[in-house]
C-alpha cells in the first residue's frame, strides 16, 4: 500500500511539472517576439492544408494562416516554426504552451472553445464530414452503410458525428480507429474498412494524393451526404487576448483583401488608391496597425507575402492545385459564400 501511494504521488508530480511550465510563458505575444519566431501547430500531413515537401518546406491553406500571422507580427512570413501534431496531441500541445497557435483543420465547437481553455479566432475553411467508399461496393448513399466497418481518426469531431449519425439513423457500424493518418488510410485502402470518413476536403485530398497503386482515384467514390458542419479555423489558448486578436485579424485581412480586390500582384499600386477603405486597410491612413499592436503595414505584408484568401485557396485547394476543390461555401459572401470579414476600421 505504501508503494502505491508514494508511486502515485511521484506520478502526480511528474504530470504537474509538465503543465506548470506554461505558467512562466507569460504573455504569449511577448514570448513570440522575444523568440523571433511563431510556433504553429499543423497537421502531420494533409495535402492542401499542411504538408511538408521533400525539402521540409511546409505549404497549404493552414500553413498560409500561420504565415499571415507571422507577417503581421514580424513583417516576415517565413518566421514560423511548424510543429506537426496528430489529432490527439494537438490540444495538449496548445494547452501546455508547446505551440503558440493551432492551424490544423480543427473544428470549432462549444466545448473546445470553453472547457478546453481555447479561443477559436475565425473560420479559414467551411467543411463538412463525408464518406468515401470503394466503387466496387456499389454504395450510392450514406444511408446504405448499415453494418459497415468504418475507418476514422480518434479524438476528432468526425468520430463523434459518425456515432451520432448512425444512432440517429438506427444503423450499426464497427469503427477501426488508428491515430496516425498514414496508418488509418492504409487500413482503408487495404480493405480493412469499407468506408473512410473525415472532412470532405480531406477526402478529396486523400483521393487525389494518397491512393496506392494499382488502385486509382477513380476506384473510390465520395458519397453525396455531408453529415456535419465543420468550421475549421485557427485556435489560440486563453490568456493573451492581444495575440488572439492578431490571429483573428490576420485571417480577416486576407478575406478583406480579396473582397476589395487587393492581390499580391497589385498591392503596390493599391497603396496609391484613393478609396478610403483601401487606404485604411493598407495602413496608408494609419491607425489600424496601432490598434492591433503591430506595424501599420501589416496587411501589405500579409498580402504581398502570402496573398489574399482567394489566392491562397486557389494555390492550395482550388483550380491551381491538384485537389481542384470548388470554392462552394468558402466563396466570399458577395459571391454567395460564407467568407465574410468584419470591416477593418
Amino acid at each position, binding site marked *: 500500500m505504501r*508503494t*502505491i501511494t508514494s*508511486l*502515485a*504521488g511521484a*506520478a*502526480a*508530480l511528474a*504530470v*504537474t*511539472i509538465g*503543465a*506548470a511550465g*506554461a*505558467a512562466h510563458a507569460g504573455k504569449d505575444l511577448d514570448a513570440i517576439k522575444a523568440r523571433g519566431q511563431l510556433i504553429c501547430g499543423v497537421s502531420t500531413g494533409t495535402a492542401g492544408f499542411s504538408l511538408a515537401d521533400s525539402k521540409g518546406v511546409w505549404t497549404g491553406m493552414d500553413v498560409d494562416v500561420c504565415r499571415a500571422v507571422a507577417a503581421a507580427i514580424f513583417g516576415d512570413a517565413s518566421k514560423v516554426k511548424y510543429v506537426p501534431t496528430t*489529432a*490527439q496531441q494537438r*490540444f*495538449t500541445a496548445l*494547452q501546455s504552451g508547446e505551440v503558440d497557435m493551432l492551424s490544423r483543420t480543427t473544428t470549432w465547437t462549444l*466545448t*473546445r472553445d*470553453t*472547457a*478546453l*481553455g481555447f479561443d477559436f479566432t475565425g473560420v479559414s475553411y467551411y467543411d463538412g464530414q463525408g464518406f468515401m467508399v470503394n466503387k466496387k*461496393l456499389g454504395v450510392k448513399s450514406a444511408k446504405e*452503410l*448499415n*453494418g*459497415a*466497418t468504418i475507418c476514422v481518426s*480518434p*479524438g*476528432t469531431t468526425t*468520430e*463523434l458525428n*459518425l*456515432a*451520432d449519425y*448512425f*444512432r440517429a439513423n438506427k444503423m450499426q*457500424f*464497427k*469503427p*477501426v*480507429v*488508428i*491515430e*496516425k493518418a498514414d*496508418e*488509418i488510410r492504409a*487500413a482503408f485502402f*487495404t*480493405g*480493412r474498412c*469499407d468506408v473512410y470518413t473525415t472532412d470532405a476536403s480531406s477526402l478529396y485530398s486523400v483521393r487525389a494524393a494518397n491512393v496506392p497503386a494499382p488502385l486509382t482515384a477513380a476506384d473510390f467514390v465520395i458519397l453525396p451526404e455531408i453529415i456535419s458542419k465543420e468550421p475549421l479555423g485557427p485556435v489560440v*489558448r*486563453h*490568456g493573451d487576448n492581444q495575440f488572439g486578436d492578431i490571429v483573428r485579424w490576420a485571417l480577416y485581412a486576407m478575406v478583406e483583401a480579396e473582397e476589395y480586390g487587393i492581390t499580391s500582384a497589385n498591392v503596390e499600386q493599391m497603396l496609391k488608391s484613393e478609396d478610403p477603405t483601401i487606404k485604411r486597410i493598407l495602413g496608408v491612413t494609419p491607425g489600424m496597425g496601432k490598434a492591433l499592436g503591430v506595424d501599420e503595414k501589416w496587411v501589405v505584408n500579409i498580402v504581398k507575402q502570402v496573398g489574399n484568401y482567394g489566392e491562397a485557396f486557389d494555390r492550395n485547394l482550388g483550380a491551381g492545385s491538384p485537389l481542384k476543390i470548388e470554392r462552394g461555401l468558402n466563396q466570399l459572401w458577395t459571391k454567395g459564400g460564407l467568407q465574410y470579414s468584419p470591416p477593418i476600421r
Partner: protein
Amino acid sequence: MAVDTIGSLPQTRVAPWNNPVIRGWVFQIVVVGLVGGLAWYLVSNTMANLEKAKIATGFDFLGREAGFEIGDTMIEYSPASTYARAIWVGILNTLRVAVIGIILTTILGTLIGIGRLSPNWLLAKICEWYVEIFRNVPLLLWLFLFYKLVSEAFPGPRQAIRMLGDSVFLSNRGLYFPIPVADPVHKWIGAGFLLGIVGAWALHRWAKARQAATGQQFPSILAGLGLIIVVPFLVWLIGGAPAKMSWPELKGFNFQGGLVIQPEFTALLVGLTLYTAAFVAEIVRSGILALHKGQSEAAAAIGLSRGQAMRLVLLPQALRVIVPPMTSVFLNITKNSSLAIAIGYPDLVASINVTINQTGQAIENILIIMAAYLTVSLSISAFMNWYNKQIAMKER
C-alpha cells in the same frame, strides 16, 4: 570551549547542532519540507494555471455521455454510455490481451527454452534462431508486420475463406465462428467447469499421496482432464442440452452473428506473444543451466526418461531461478500491450486518449491511466511474489 573539554573529558556536552540524533531529525524535516513544499507549489501552480486558462478540472466528466463508438468490446457499450464505461471497456480489453498473452507466452517460451537445450541439433538451432530474430527487432515493428499480414493477406468479407462447412469464416474483418446463444444453463456449466478443476486438483493430491505411500501410480493428469470435461458436459445434459447456436452470416457489408476475433486483437496478441516468448525462452534456459549437471545425471541414473527428468527433477528446481525474472516479463507484457494504439486495438490507452481529447482534462485522465496500470502491475507482482515464496527452498 574545545580547549576546556580536552583536559577533563567529562561526559562530553555536545552542542545541539553537533548531536547526530538532532541533526538527523533536522535534515529529515528539511528534506520532507522541501519535497512537500515543491509538491504543494507544483499542484497549486497547476491549479491556478488551469483556473486562469478556464480549463475544466475534476472528475465530473466520468458520468457524462462518451459519444464515441468502440470497435471491440467485451461488455455492452454504445456511444450513449458514459466516459467511465468507455474507460472500463479499455481496461477490460487491456486485461484480455495481457492475460491471454501471459499464458501463451509462458507456454511457448518454456517450450523454446527447453528446445534450445535439446540434443537434437536442428531443433536447438531453430529455437536459437527464433530467440535471436524475435528479441532483436523492436516490438512495434512486429506489431506493424503482423497487422499488415492479417489485414492484407486475407480477402475481404465477401470472398472470405470458408471452413468447416460454412460455419467458420476468415477474412480481413477477423475470424468469425458460431457460438451458443446465451442461455441460463451456461452459468451452471461454468460452475461445473470450476468444480471439475477443483476435483482434478484434489484427485492429483490424492494420487501423489498414494504414490508416496504405496508406490502405485495413478494416471491423475488424464483423469483430471476427464473430470474437467465431463462435469460441465453432464451439467449441460441435465440443463436440457440447449444447443441453439448463433451462426455468422454475410449480411450487407459484413458478417453478423457468431463471435469474432478481430485482426487488431490477433495482431497484438501474436506480436506480444512471439516477441516476449524469446525472453521467456532465455530465462527458462538460464534457469535449467543454473542447475548442477549432477541433477540430470542422477535423474538418468535412477531410470527416469528425459521427459520425466525435466518435469520431475530439473524444472521444479529451475523454477526458483526462473520465477523472479518472469515477474518482470509479465509486467512487460501488460505494459507493452499499450503499443496497441499503433494498430488500432481499443485498449485502455486508446479510450483514455480519446477521453482526454474530448474533455481536455489531461491531468485527471493520466492519473486514471496510471492508477489502472499500477493496480494491474502491483497485483501481478504480489501474486508472483507469493508464488515465489511457495516454491522457494524449504529448509527442513
